[in-house]
């Protein structure tokens, strides 16, 4: 069955005042401001409509939804007419019927009559309405002025006719089928906030125009799919539907891209995905999507997918395909012989933020119980580990404080080191909607990102700080607020530890933290910093959103604490519209951390040295846990180079591409005797592996992902695993082969065990999620339905703790040899190492990584736009194409790491966050020069790509 959410026609009214009216003789009570159309739908009465849908504000253009109201003149449109107390509405009469039929007749007189062969056949609101109003003939005929046919009899070339636009790789735009209802234009504006579409021309000449009538691909369109979803006809249709026809059943599941964790309906034919449609009842996205989740899922069936286990003795040997049993035995044998030779601590593993909670949980359990050490870490090490450390020090728990919906109540939004329009697009759309409605925006970022200025969005303050000076900026903000007496004294007195606060006060008041004193260091005008501080402190609800531009620094953890200080200082914690909100990178990075993936803590963030906690796990897991913390990823790699770490199990993470100082990573991998990779593709890391376990895509998984809001969403299996086994099954079998008894019948059983051992998950089960749609942890006896907002009446740690956050410049500084600072990030169409998105049409937008450089820095070096340039740091060098742009400040350059050949991480250094070892990706001193050949590393990469990924013929 296809899941279809009810369309109420117009958005829900948030009013609390209720109004009672009568519709067709039935009484109904709805919130004030509700449209008559919506009120009728709540009664189950579908008033005919074309231009209305409840994701968009009412518009009143199609004139189909007319009604009669007793005592009022005319026939008002029910979508634009709000309810009023005591009115009596009629939704059907002869007069209304005739009016509607007349309107439909006009629409159909300018619409092709190819319903049988039309891609929207079976999913067309125009067709439905023609049926609903009882249209039987069209008196005007079809030969008059129209947009339908290329040639008209007796006229010749029809100047109104426009060819179908097929430029977008995922959907087509057929102007001949357009009824100019403006739903696409409004979706682009209201839902997505890109304003790429408009209605051009007037009267009968009105038509939808992408950009300056230049076609979708050439326009500003970001391919989020909101217009396609809003279109009531076949005008905007997914190419997959055109090719394969309408889906016949759907399953609600969760996107496997970023940490927003959007809910989608996988619309299927058999086990073939026809399209992914954002689910309106999804808590994180409420019906919106981006180009990745909506369209870029084709990688799941890409020809590069490996579906058979493979082994080899040396990494230069070709891969040999084998059965599961042999592959698992080979891996277990290797690990066991390493442990015999080098001890129990000589092996370890990495869990994946792309896998489900259940899959992650079993991997860390295998490492702690079967390997019997704590050498387990996860990709969060290299992204949000400082968030965990910083927030738990100050607030007592390491996760974000709000749900995404909270942004609707924010008055001042402070974005630091995040680029939500590219990295977290669906959240960005919600945020932009709030900004268009009047919220103020402060952006602290070296680059002039789209958030700083884009259509109908403009930051009140852009603080273009030098990479590495975050802590200086956040201290300066707090300094201004405190010295100008703008702090929230009542909140601090009631909610925070006052002894710590007075200690912190002495520190932050020091003139060295003033914006004037730090101006030379940060490069940001003191006046702007003061302005931003005053706005944040006095502008109403202040909400902080941040990304890896905060965490991936030598002072990442310090910065997280600095932001927590700022939030407490201004009383912006514990209610809607405020908070400290990490925008998490990967789909399940929150979950991977929750599941005990860090070497020092068990599921639920409890330290491994805690005897009581260890006893509990020893009992449930039937094991004896080591009480010492294990190695973190960078420590594992160092230990490998030192010769004490010899084997690793890597679940869905590509450290050879994503981790810093690539040469060091690959040297470590080469030093190991048993590298096991579980992944969809032979990724960069697999070039150094001895065993390859084929993994499952999100469409084949059964389990849960936890997004940045702590929201546990179900990932439902829509098709059978292509390689025949669930990933958790493979892991359990490997544990068995290592001599530890681990067995589960299904993913729900694993979640039950997680709930048993983790107090914050005590109330979580698949059944609970089924009932509620999703649930936000903590979910237990105290909060049986989960916790959308944290720290409401008090902090998890009791009193909030202000931490002293001294600014310390990173040792990585620009110098004569390396005068520029390189910072890294991502773009909208690609995701992380690109393993998924590069295997989709998303590469049409971003076929290669480019180096963004300011015109002045380029000019100085004789670099023209589009030139190949060599990029070198003290660590290594690579070659890529330059893009000259004033988005960059002078002295700072930027690139992404979506394509392996770029080798962006060949450049990045060994420096890391003081508390968590999270690498300092965001600051590398570099030089750029024109170049005409690939770097040495790139030449080696080409060879390895060829050699190390060979599979032997059968």
């Amino acid at each position, binding site marked *: 069955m296809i899941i279809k959410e009810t369309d109420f026609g117009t958005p829900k009214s948030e009013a609390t005042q209720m109004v009672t009216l009568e519709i067709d003789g039935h009484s109904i009570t709805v919130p004030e401001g509700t449209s008559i159309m919506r009120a009728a739908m709540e009664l189950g009465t579908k008033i005919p409509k074309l231009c209305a849908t409840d994701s968009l504000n009412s518009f009143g253009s199609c004139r189909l939804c007319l009604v009669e109201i007793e005592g009022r003149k005319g026939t008002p449109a029910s979508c634009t007419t709000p309810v009023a107390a005591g009115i009596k509405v009629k939704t059907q009469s002869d007069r209304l019927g005739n009016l509607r039929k007349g309107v439909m007749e006009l629409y159909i007189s300018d619409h092709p009559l190819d319903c049988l062969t039309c891609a929207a056949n079976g999913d067309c609101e125009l067709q439905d309405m023609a049926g609903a109003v009882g249209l039987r003939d069209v008196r005007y005929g079809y030969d008059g002025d129209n947009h339908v046919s290329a040639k008209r009899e007796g006229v010749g070339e029809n100047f109104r006719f426009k060819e179908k636009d097929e430029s977008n790789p995922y959907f087509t735009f057929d102007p001949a089928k357009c009824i100019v209802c403006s739903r696409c234009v409004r979706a682009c504006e209201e839902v997505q906030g890109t304003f790429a579409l408009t209605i051009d021309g007037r009267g009968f000449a009105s038509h939808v125009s992408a950009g300056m009538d230049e076609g979708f691909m050439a326009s500003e369109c970001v391919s989020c799919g909101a217009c396609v979803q809003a279109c009531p006809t076949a005008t905007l249709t997914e190419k997959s539907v055109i090719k394969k026809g309408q889906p016949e059943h759907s399953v609600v599941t969760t996107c496997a891209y970023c940490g927003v964790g959007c809910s989608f309906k996988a619309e299927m034919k058999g086990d073939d995905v026809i399209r992914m449609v954002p689910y309106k009842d999804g808590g994180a996205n409420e019906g919106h999507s981006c180009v990745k989740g909506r369209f870029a899922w084709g990688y799941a069936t890409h020809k590069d997918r490996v579906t058979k286990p493979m082994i080899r003795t040396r990494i230069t040997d070709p891969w040999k395909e084998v059965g599961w049993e042999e592959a698992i035995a080979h891996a277990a044998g290797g690990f*066991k012989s390493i*442990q*015999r*030779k*080098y*001890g*129990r*601590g*000589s092996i370890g593993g990495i869990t994946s933020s792309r896998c489900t909670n259940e899959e992650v949980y079993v991997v860390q359990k295998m490492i702690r*119980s*079967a*390997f*019997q*050490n*704590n*050498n387990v870490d996860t990709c969060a090490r290299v992204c949000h580990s400082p968030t965990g450390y910083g927030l738990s020090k100050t607030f007592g728990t390491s996760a974000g404080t709000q749900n995404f919906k909270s942004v609707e109540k924010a008055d001042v939004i402070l974005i630091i080191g995040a680029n939500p329009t590219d990295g977290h697009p669906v959240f960005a759309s919600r945020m932009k909607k709030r900004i268009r409605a009047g919220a103020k925006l402060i952006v602290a970022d070296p680059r002039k990102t789209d958030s700083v200025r884009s259509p109908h969005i403009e930051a009140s303050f852009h603080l273009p700080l030098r990479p590495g000076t975050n802590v200086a900026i956040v201290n300066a903000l707090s300094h201004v607020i405190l010295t100008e007496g703008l702090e929230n004294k009542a909140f601090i007195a009631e909610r925070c530890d006052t002894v710590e606060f007075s200690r912190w006060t002495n*520190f932050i008041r020091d003139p060295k933290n003033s914006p004037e004193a730090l101006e030379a260091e940060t490069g940001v005008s003191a006046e702007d910093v003061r302005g931003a501080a005053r706005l944040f402190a006095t502008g109403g609800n202040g909400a902080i959103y941040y990304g890896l531009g905060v965490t991936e620094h*030598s002072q990442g*953890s*310090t910065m997280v604490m600095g932001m927590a200080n700022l939030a407490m200082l201004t009383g912006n914690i514990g209610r809607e519209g405020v908070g400290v909100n990490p925008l998490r990178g990967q789909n399940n990075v929150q979950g991977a951390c929750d599941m005990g993936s860090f*070497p*020092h803590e068990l599921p639920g963030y409890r*330290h491994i*040295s805690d005897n009581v906690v260890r006893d509990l796990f020893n009992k449930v897991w039937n*094991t*004896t846990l*080591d009480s*010492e*913390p*294990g*190695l*973190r990823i960078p*420590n594992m790699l*160092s*230990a490998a180079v*030192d010769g*004490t770490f010899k084997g690793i199990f890597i679940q869905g993470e590509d450290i050879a591409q994503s981790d810093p100082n690539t040469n060091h990573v690959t040297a470590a991998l080469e030093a190991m005797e048993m590298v096991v990779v579980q992944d969809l593709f032979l990724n960069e890391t697999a070039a150094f592996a001895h065993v390859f376990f084929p993994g499952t895509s999100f469409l084949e998984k059964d389990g849960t992902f936890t997004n940045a809001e702590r929201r546990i969403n179900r990932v439902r299996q829509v098709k059978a695993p292509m390689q025949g086994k669930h990933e958790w099954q493979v892991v359990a079998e490997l544990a*068995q*082969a*290592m*001599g*530890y*008894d681990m067995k589960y019948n299904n993913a729900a059983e694993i979640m039950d065990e997680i709930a048993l051992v983790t107090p914050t998950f005590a109330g979580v089960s698949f059944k609970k999620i089924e009932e509620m749609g999703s649930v936000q942890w903590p979910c237990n006896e105290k909060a049986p339905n989960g916790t959308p907002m944290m720290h409401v009446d008090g902090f998890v740690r009791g009193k909030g703790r202000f931490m*002293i956050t*001294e600014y*310390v410049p990173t*040792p990585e500084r620009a110098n004569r040899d390396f005068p520029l600072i390189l910072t890294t990030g991502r773009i909208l169409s690609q995701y992380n190492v690109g393993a998924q998105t590069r295997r989709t049409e998303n590469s049409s937008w971003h076929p290669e990584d480019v180096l963004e450089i300011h015109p002045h820095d380029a000019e100085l070096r004789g670099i023209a736009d589009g030139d190949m340039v060599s990029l070198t740091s003290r660590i290594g060098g690579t070659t890529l194409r330059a893009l000259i742009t004033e988005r960059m400040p002078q002295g700072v350059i930027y690139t992404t790491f979506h394509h392996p050949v770029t080798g962006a991480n060949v450049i990045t250094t*060994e420096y*890391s966050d*003081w*508390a*968590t*070892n999270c690498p300092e990706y965001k600051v590398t001193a570099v030089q750029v020069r024109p170049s005409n050949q690939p770097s040495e590393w790139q030449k080696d990469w080409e060879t390895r790509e060829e050699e190390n990924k060979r599979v032997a013929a059968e």
Partner: protein
Amino acid sequence: MESKDMVRMANQIATFFKSYGAEEGTKEIATHINNFWEPRMRSHFFDFVAKGNTGFDPLVLAAVSMIRKPADHATQQGDLPKHGEES
């Protein structure tokens, strides 16, 4: 791990906790290292301290007595998981 990296990491920790004064600062440094440094990192640390010429921040050296000495475990030949060789 290269010794210079280990020294840098220890000093980075000291730099943060320095703000809390000598007494509290040293305690925090020790706790941090005990909580997050795997035994072989701590062994490396102690070996290096024992050599004398270190480059450590004085606060790190002040914390040495509170840092847990790792038992020689886990990286020794024959130190195996307790669930035994074969199942």
